[in-house]
């Protein structure tokens, strides 16, 4: 399999990165992704990143947790082995089931949402990341452009330079690189 090639603009200022992303959008250069030390707000619009549907998933996970624990509690205290404790009704005792239902809802939402996020972002323990620069998690801002699907390399480079990139790098990663979206 042939390696994947990227042209990367290295910036040291998020404002310049934002401007470059806007310019790329205007001139029809397709940006693969940006790599930044923190979430640069506004960049997602220029890159055309759609809002994640994780919040819908989270809601569904919460519903699952709620329903499962509701069924479990009713099965245990009503169907399988009803126990009369202090004369209090244990059958379909909705009010006393509220706390445990709530905790299960929260637990399912939290864990399953996080696991979905990791799976969707291809995050696993010990994955060795493909980095453009060791400082991209500290103080450098990278704009990565796919060199294969964008043919006009000269125009890309001059755009990056004009927008204030401190360096332009050509990087090759193995075809199964960790940046696959």
């Amino acid at each position, binding site marked *: 399999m042939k390696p994947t090639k990227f042209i990367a603009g290295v910036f040291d*200022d998020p404002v310049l990165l934002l401007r470059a992303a806007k310019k790329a959008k205007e001139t029809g250069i397709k940006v693969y*992704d940006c790599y930044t030390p*923190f*979430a640069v707000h506004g960049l997602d619009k220029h890159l055309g*990143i759609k809002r994640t549907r994780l919040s819908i998933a989270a809601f569904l996970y919460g519903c699952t947790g709620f329903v499962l624990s509701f069924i479990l509690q009713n099965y245990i*205290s009503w169907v399988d082995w009803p126990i009369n404790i202090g004369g209090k009704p244990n059958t379909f*005792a909705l009010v006393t089931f509220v706390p445990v239902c709530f905790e299960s809802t929260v637990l399912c*939402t939290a864990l399953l949402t996080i696991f979905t996020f990791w799976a969707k*972002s291809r995050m696993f323990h010990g994955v060795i990341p493909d980095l453009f620069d060791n400082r991209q*998690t500290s103080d450098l801002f990278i704009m990565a452009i796919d060199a294969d699907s964008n043919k006009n390399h000269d125009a890309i480079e001059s755009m990056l330079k004009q927008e204030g990139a401190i360096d332009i790098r050509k990087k090759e990663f193995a075809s199964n690189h960790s940046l696959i979206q």
Partner: protein
Amino acid sequence: MIESHLRERLITGDKSYGQISEDICRPIENPPTKAWWAGFSLSFVFLCILGLSLSVSVGIGLGMWGINKSVGWAWDITNFVFWVGIGHAGTLISAILLLFRQKWRMSINRSAEAMTIFAVMCAAIFPVFHMGRVWDGFWALPLPNNFGSLWVNFNSPLLWDVFAISTYFTVSIFFWYMGLIPDIATVRDRAKTKTAKWAYNLFAMGWNGSMRTWMRYEIVCLILAGISTPLVLSVHTIVSMDFATSVIPGWHTTIFPPYFVAGAIFSGFGMVLTLLVIARKVMNYEDYITIHHLDAMCKVVMLTGTIVGCAYITEFFVAWYSGVEYEQYAFKNRAFGDYWWAYWTMMTCNLVAPQVFWFKKIRQNPTIIFIMSIIVNIGMWFERFVIIVTSLHRDYIPSSWTYYRPTITEIGIFLGTFGLFFTCYFLFCKFLPSISIAETKAIMPIDQLPIAKERMKKEGHSHH
């Protein structure tokens, strides 16, 4: 662009992005200082005391504790509620202040969340060992079985507590770890040795700062904050229901849930202040945890302390107004009975002492803040002691009246949990970034960075 100067700057010292990584990673990348070794060793000694005391409690039995037939819950449950309460400030800072968009939380949330996790670990020790036969602890889970009572009782708040505390612990750990991932990646990419690179790489999960991941990450953190907020309220509400649903005078009151939650936030902020006043000095984080951060936390302490004090007075009023003689006796006994000293310690530390924070000079004096934070911790420990022991030691039947004293084993366990807490905290400070690197960078005013000034000079125009 107009820059508002209504608030003091959150991070002082004109830091660049690189400088922030440098400052926060310094304790991780350098060998530990003498102060660290001294603190860690002392904590470790106390951790050993914990191991010893617990071995005695399990090996010989709960007869080694001072509990008796009237006071069946004493130091153990006092310490349980004390530690759970301390844990709550972490979630409050990380979740509720995130939803309220309080940016000053960024410098303190990481260590407060770590504190939550360690405090809940300490808390869990008490109910588990109070069961006596620790190895049968899993009976508290709803497992299909053919021994003892067949299923758990979902009518009991004690069972709700099992679910609440374990959910709270799990969610707190995951929330904390989620926040750590980008920062672990920062440490990974700065690491010099092979071992460090390997270890941080294992936990960084391949984080590369991709914009798509960042966008999802922020939504996930928001969802976690959204569900942690009712979670933290539910946990202490359920803890209070352990007492409120019983028919013991002094416990059987509807005011307990909000009163316990306010108390938890109060004591938790007390502990956060104790830790941070020291940490900012020892770890050179004074530019990140500024005097204004301490000021803001002091205001929270004062507010919640006053709420708690208000609850104490309301309880007295309700006891008188209800006309129930047992209830009235319980409260008279609290203030003027055998444990009067515990009651007035609580009143002084929790209601009277925090009122000094009305003065700005005091809110900005680290020495006084540190002393105050210790007073708050003592006061909140006594609050739980007063609620639990004074209510139990005077039963409905005068023949069961008794006096409770802790034994050396119980004192050992309590002091030992401080050993566990601080051992974990020292290890955390050494191996993980104790201030959120990514979030701190994100709140830097973008036009006041050194890099921005350079850019503006180049472009030949200035704002304002």
